[in-house]
């Protein structure tokens, strides 16, 4: 090989070497851009806790290490630290701590979230003690001395009143050499969202933001809401799963950016599907290129209430101190600046009591305004016509249920009580009371919720079909039966009442379809099934 060729080879190799060095530089720049993984921080304050609890409850500590709290050095004592004299506090290894972390503890840092949450329906979930649901759990299903159905059922979603074991003088009983106060086992553990805490705060952040990793993706997932929003009386998660929204979510979970740090914005971070959080509380993009703030006030964007016997549109009245009340559109709104007697439920001596507080009206948000906020989320994917027409479909179903079934049924029930057929203190004495209860509380809600979140089968077969079947086939006969039990005359009165009702246009079909309709029906079955 001559010298010149050798030089060419050296040149070629040199350029190959250069290329490999550039690859090295590229690799290096890629590495520099990569995010640095930060380790959890155990601050001096928490070192003692972590040392023992890493041994005693290793998975708990591991979960915490997985949290953003740990990355910023927020640890055990920052949340569990308590003051001497607090009912749930005891001196543990040199620090006053409490096992119970309440929303007020979280509010040390998350003030805005606490304020929003505290005025939400979620915070009031524990105030159900005077409801029929409660009667069913404590009376129908329970027995004196054993409240297990309410404890394991109702309270695990709605929240318990945290109580302590006390001696005859009312002093909290303590155990162990550290004098740890003993919590009433019926009331704790409890992660119900409307828990009533000893410090007066309402709710439990852990209900949605499960400890100790507090992962955002968990609270953003629909399954999280599905813990409570499910079942015969409010099958929201089942409806969601049935809906186009739910289908899109489960298919595209990997594109949902559920792990996004900070604000999780529809139209910026993800587009694949809305979750429960997306529509009800999360941020979304608006046409001006900004995005809305999320809100921990969960009912803010709801325009109908679909819970009571008869649905109403909901306006809201916000008072000077942030207290908030829903006003059904049937109730007259106050003027801004008016002072109104408001009813507030508070815990006194570990019992829930009502308190009347005069408050000054600061702001009124109408149901139209609330709906507009919800529509903002819809408009990220759909156009105005689409959204407006959806609301028309939804509104029509609620009105149909209200007018055809709910209002007549309610009016009959009210009259039965007025006529002394039903005893207001015996809510589940007669068959008609059970039927009526399921008519609105189960079937009627299923129909309305189904329509509100695009679940066709829940709207019809689990919903309106059941409502109408039971209305005609069980409710109306049971009305007459209950009245007859009272007296023959009363039976005759309600027979006439039912006949008059069935004579109305919308109920006439029971006695026979029109000849054309009947013919069409026969033809269809002939064609389809050759019957």
């Amino acid at each position, binding site marked *: *090989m001559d*010298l010149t060729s*050798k*030089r060419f*080879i*050296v040149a070629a*190799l*040199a350029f*190959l*070497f250069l290329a*490999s*060095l550039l*690859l*090295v530089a590229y*690799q*290096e720049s890629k*590495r*520099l851009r990569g995010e640095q993984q930060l380790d959890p921080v155990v601050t001096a304050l928490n070192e003692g806790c972590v040392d023992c609890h890493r041994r005693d409850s290793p998975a708990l500590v591991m979960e915490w290490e997985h949290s953003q709290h740990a990355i910023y050095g927020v640890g055990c004592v920052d949340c569990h630290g308590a003051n001497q004299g607090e009912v749930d506090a005891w001196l543990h290894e040199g620090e006053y701590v409490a096992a119970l972390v309440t929303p007020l503890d979280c509010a040390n840092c998350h003030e805005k979230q606490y304020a929003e949450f505290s005025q939400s329906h979620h915070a009031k979930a524990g105030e159900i003690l005077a409801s029929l649901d409660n009667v069913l759990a404590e009376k129908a299903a329970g027995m004196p001395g054993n409240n297990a159905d309410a404890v394991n059922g109702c309270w695990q979603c709605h929240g318990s009143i945290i109580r302590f074991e006390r001696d005859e003088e009312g002093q909290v009983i303590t155990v162990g050499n550290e004098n740890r106060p003993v919590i009433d086992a019926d009331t704790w553990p409890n992660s119900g969202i409307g828990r009533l805490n000893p410090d007066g705060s309402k709710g439990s952040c852990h209900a949605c933001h499960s400890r100790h990793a507090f992962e955002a993706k968990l609270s953003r997932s629909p399954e999280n809401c599905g813990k409570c929003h499910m079942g015969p009386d409010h099958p929201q998660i089942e409806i969601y799963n049935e809906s186009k929204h739910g289908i899109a979510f489960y298919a595209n979970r990997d594109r949902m950016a559920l792990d996004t740090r900070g604000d999780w914005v529809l139209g910026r971070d993800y587009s694949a599907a809305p979750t429960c959080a997306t529509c009800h509380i999360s941020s979304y993009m608006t046409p001006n290129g900004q995005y809305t703030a999320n809100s921990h006030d969960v009912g803010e964007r709801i325009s109908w209430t679909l819970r009571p016997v008869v649905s109403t549109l909901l306006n809201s009245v916000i008072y000077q101190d942030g207290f908030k009340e829903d006003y059904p559109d049937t109730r007259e709104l106050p003027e801004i600046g008016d002072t109104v007697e408001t009813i507030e439920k508070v815990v006194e001596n570990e019992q829930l009591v009502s308190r009347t507080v005069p408050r000054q009206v600061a702001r009124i948000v109408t149901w139209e305004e609330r709906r507009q906020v919800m529509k903002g989320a819809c408009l990220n994917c759909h156009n105005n016509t689409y959204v407006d027409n959806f609301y028309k479909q939804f509104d029509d179903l609620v009105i149909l249920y209200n007018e055809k079934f709910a209002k007549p049924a309610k009016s009959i029930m009210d009259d039965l009580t007025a006529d002394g057929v039903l005893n207001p203190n015996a809510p589940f004495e007669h068959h008609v009371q059970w039927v009526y209860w399921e008519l609105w509380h189960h079937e009627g809600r299923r129909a309305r919720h189904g329509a509100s979140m695009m679940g066709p089968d829940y709207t019809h077969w689990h919903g309106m079909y059941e409502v109408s079947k039971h209305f005609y086939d069980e409710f109306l006969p049971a009305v007459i039966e209950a009245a007859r039990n009272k007296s023959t005359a009363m039976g005759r009165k309600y027979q006439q009442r039912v006949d008059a009702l069935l004579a109305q246009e919308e109920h006439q079909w029971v006695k026979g379809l029109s000849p054309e309709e009947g013919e069409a029906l026969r033809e269809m079955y002939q064609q389809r099934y050759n019957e």
Partner: protein
Amino acid sequence: MAELQEKQSSQAGLLHRVSQLFPFDWELVRQASAEPVPYHIKKWWFCLGGTVLYLFVIQVVTGIALTFYYIPSPDQAYQSIAEITQDVRFGWYIRSLHKWASNCMIVAMFLHLLRVYFTGGYRHPRQLNWCIGFLLLGVTLTFGFTGYSLVYEQLSFWGATVGTNLAEAVPLIGPSLAYFLRGGPEVSENTLTRFYVLHIGLLPTLAFVLIFLHVLLIRLHGVTELKFEGEEVPEEARHFRFWPDHATTELLIGVLLMYLLTIMALVFPAGLGEPANPIQTPEHIKPEWYFYFNFRLLQLTSLRVSVVFTMALGAICFLWPFVEEWLTRKFKVSDRVWVMVGVLAFLGFLVLTVWESFV
């Protein structure tokens, strides 16, 4: 014109004045580099010695760079390597170069040794240079052993432990040698410091001296001219110039090595295992591959037997030119026998190494 002349003469004057500051006869360099090189050196396998030297230079350069960040203390050694690998710019690259060049250096050295053996380059009068070369092999392996231990990850820590335990089995001086290496009865913070000093101070000095002697002896003896069977080389092509002909070849090898090492660094960057834990022996301990044959031997025989055997083998190899001479004289064996011996020894080494790598 006159101006130009004046300027030229002043320039010459300046050059003269500078050369006075460093009174060296540059003619010597010219002469030394003009040494005619025999034709057979154009074959690549005669450049393996140069390859080793080039790799040694890479090791010196990257090694010095790494000492800028390395902290030879048991608490911080692993941490500092992690920082080099993760935080320092191009740290992973420099460290990978150092790692791969060390492996390549040992491979090149073995190949160089085989070449010298099978071309008979160690025979009279060049016996002494074989011995020096063999010492260089020893120094290089020690470089590898100490360097690997400096990483202070689990495997390298326990490698050091096993290595110094082996030293203990050396007859007579073993215990004191092991005690000296570890700086105490067991592997401790002293051991790391000692290994560090060996790796960056003692061994490099020794290597420089030996390399100098090695090259000096080559030049003093001159290179044997080899002729291969069936190869016709015209008289005027019997030699070529060191400069620029052979120098370009070395340059070529150098750039090729840099390229290959960079690719190795990119594809197989030096990793980092678990940090050393003196309390817990890992389940599988293995030394670097160049100690595999010894490690296998150790498992086949007892500690003492294998150590004594290795030492005897080392001594025989070290003094091979003289041993061979003596044997040839005594038993009148032909060259073919020595070729066979070489092949068998190499195969033995290969088999043990491959065996160990599959266990």
